[in-house]
C-alpha cells in the first residue's frame, strides 16, 4: 500500500514534489530512492515546493536538505496557501489568491452544519442546509446559506469588506465580514422578529448592514 508516496510533477513554474499521506520515514526513504534514480535529470533545475501531505516545518527542512545538499537541486519556495490534497486542483495555479467576489471558486455543501463542525474555504461557500448554533463557516469570498444561519459566519476572511453573507433565515450568533465583527444584540426585549424573507448582510460605512434583498413582498 505504501508504494509511490512521492512523485515529481511539473507545471509552468517548475517542478514540485507531490507527497501523499503516509509515514514520514517511508516518504523520506522513497524520496531518496527516487532522487538516486533520477536525480541527475533534475540537476540544476528548480523545485518549487512540496505539495499534498501537510508537512511540519521540521519535516520540510529535512526533505529540503536532502534534496538541496545531496542532489544539487535548488528549492525556491513559493508560499503555499493551504494546498488541498485533491489532485483535481493541481493544474490551477496555486499562488494566485482568490479574487472573486462577483465570481470565483465556490464550494457547495449539502448537509446541515452542526455544532462543532467548521467549514473553511478559499472561495465562496454555499451551504444547502442549515448552520446550527456552534457551527462555523469561514470563507475568503461570499457565504450563502440555503436555510437558517444560526451559527458563526466569516465572509471575506482575508479582509475583503465587499463580501456578503446571505441566508434564507439570517440569525447568526456572530457575523464577520472582512475585519468587521457584528453580533446578535444581547437585549432579550428587542428580540428581532423572525424575518419572513431572505436577508443579506454587507458592510456599509464600517457597519454590518442586514436587509432583505428581495423587493418588498
Amino acid at each position, binding site marked *: 500500500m505504501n508504494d509511490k508516496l512521492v512523485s515529481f510533477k511539473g507545471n509552468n513554474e517548475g517542478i514540485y514534489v507531490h507527497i501523499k499521506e503516509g509515514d514520514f520515514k517511508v516518504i523520506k526513504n522513497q524520496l531518496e530512492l527516487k532522487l538516486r534514480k533520477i536525480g541527475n535529470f533534475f540537476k540544476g533545475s528548480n523545485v518549487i515546493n512540496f505539495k499534498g501531505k501537510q508537512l511540519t516545518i521540521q519535516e520540510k527542512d529535512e526533505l529540503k536538505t536532502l534534496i538541496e545538499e545531496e542532489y544539487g537541486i535548488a528549492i525556491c519556495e513559493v508560499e503555499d496557501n493551504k494546498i488541498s490534497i485533491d489532485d483535481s486542483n493541481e493544474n490551477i495555479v496555486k499562488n494566485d489568491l482568490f479574487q472573486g467576489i462577483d465570481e470565483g471558486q465556490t464550494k457547495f455543501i449539502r448537509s446541515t452544519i452542526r*455544532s462543532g463542525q467548521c467549514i473553511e474555504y478559499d472561495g465562496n461557500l454555499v451551504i444547502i442546509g442549515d448552520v446550527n448554533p*456552534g457551527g462555523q463557516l469561514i470563507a475568503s469570498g461570499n457565504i450563502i446559506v440555503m436555510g437558517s444561519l444560526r451559527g458563526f459566519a466569516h465572509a471575506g476572511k482575508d479582509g475583503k469588506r465587499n463580501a456578503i453573507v446571505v441566508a434564507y433565515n439570517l440569525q447568526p450568533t456572530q457575523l464577520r465580514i472582512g475585519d468587521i465583527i457584528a453580533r446578535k444584540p444581547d437585549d432579550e426585549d428587542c428580540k428581532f422578529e423572525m424575518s419572513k424573507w431572505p436577508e443579506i448582510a454587507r458592510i456599509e460605512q464600517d457597519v454590518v448592514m442586514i436587509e432583505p434583498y428581495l423587493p418588498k413582498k
Partner: protein
Amino acid sequence: MSEVIVITSGKGGVGKTTTTANIGAGLAQAGNKVVVIDADIGLRNLDVVLGLENRIVYDIVDVVNKVCRLKQGLIRDKRYEGLYLLPAAQTKDKTAVTPGEMFELCNDLKEHFDYVIIDCPAGIEQGFQNAIAGAQKAIVVTTPEISAVRDADRIIGLLEAKGLHNPMLIINRIRQDMVKRGDMMNIDDMIDILAIDLLGVVPDDESIVISTNKGEPVISDDNSFAGKAFSNISKRILGEEVPLLDLDVDESMLSKLRKLIFGK
C-alpha cells in the same frame, strides 16, 4: 435480525439511563430478548435504576478482559422475562475498555439477543467513543433546554461522522403547560434545529423520580404518563415499518396529556 442501539445525549442528566431502562423493559415486555449495557464505567447507574445493584458479581470490564464468560456477566432482570443487564465497573474508568473491544462485545451479544441497548455516558470522550463503537442505530435524548439541544446537535454531528446516520430523537421532560405559556422550547423548534426524526416525547413526570428511587422502570406503572410515553416509544422501535402509526400514537398521547393538564 438483532439490533444494537446506543442511547446518547452529550449533556448529562437528560435521562439517558432512565430511557435505556424503560426502552429495555418495554422491548422485553413485548417478548424480545434484550440486553442493556451500562457503558458508563466508573459511574454506573443503570443497575440502580433497574433495581439490580445487589446482584452484580461480574461487570463489563471482567467480560472484556475474559475474567468471566459473557453469560456470567449478564444479570437477569427480576421483573421482565428476557431482559438482561451487563453492568459497568465502578472501580475502573473509561479507558478500561477500548472501542475495538466494545465492538466485539456487541457482536457477540448480537448473536444471543434481539436488541442490544447501550447506555452511553455523558461527554464526547472515550466513554462516548466506546459506547457508539458497536452500534448500528442511535437514539439521541434531549430536554427542552438550549444547552441540551446544543449538545444534542454536536452529538448528531459526531454520530454522522462515525457513520451512524439518521439518529432518532427523544425529547424528555417536556412540560406542556410551560410550552403553552412560551416559557419552554416547543417540539417544533427543537426538530427544526436538530433536523432528525422524532421517536417520542416524554412528559416531565413525578412518577419517574419515584420509580427510579424504587428501582423499577416507570413503564410498569400504568397510571404514569411518562410510562405510557416510554411504552409508545418501545412500540415505535418495534414497528418501524408503519410510520403512519407513529404519528397517531404520538397525537393521542399528547391529547391525553393535554386533557390531564387541563383537567386538573
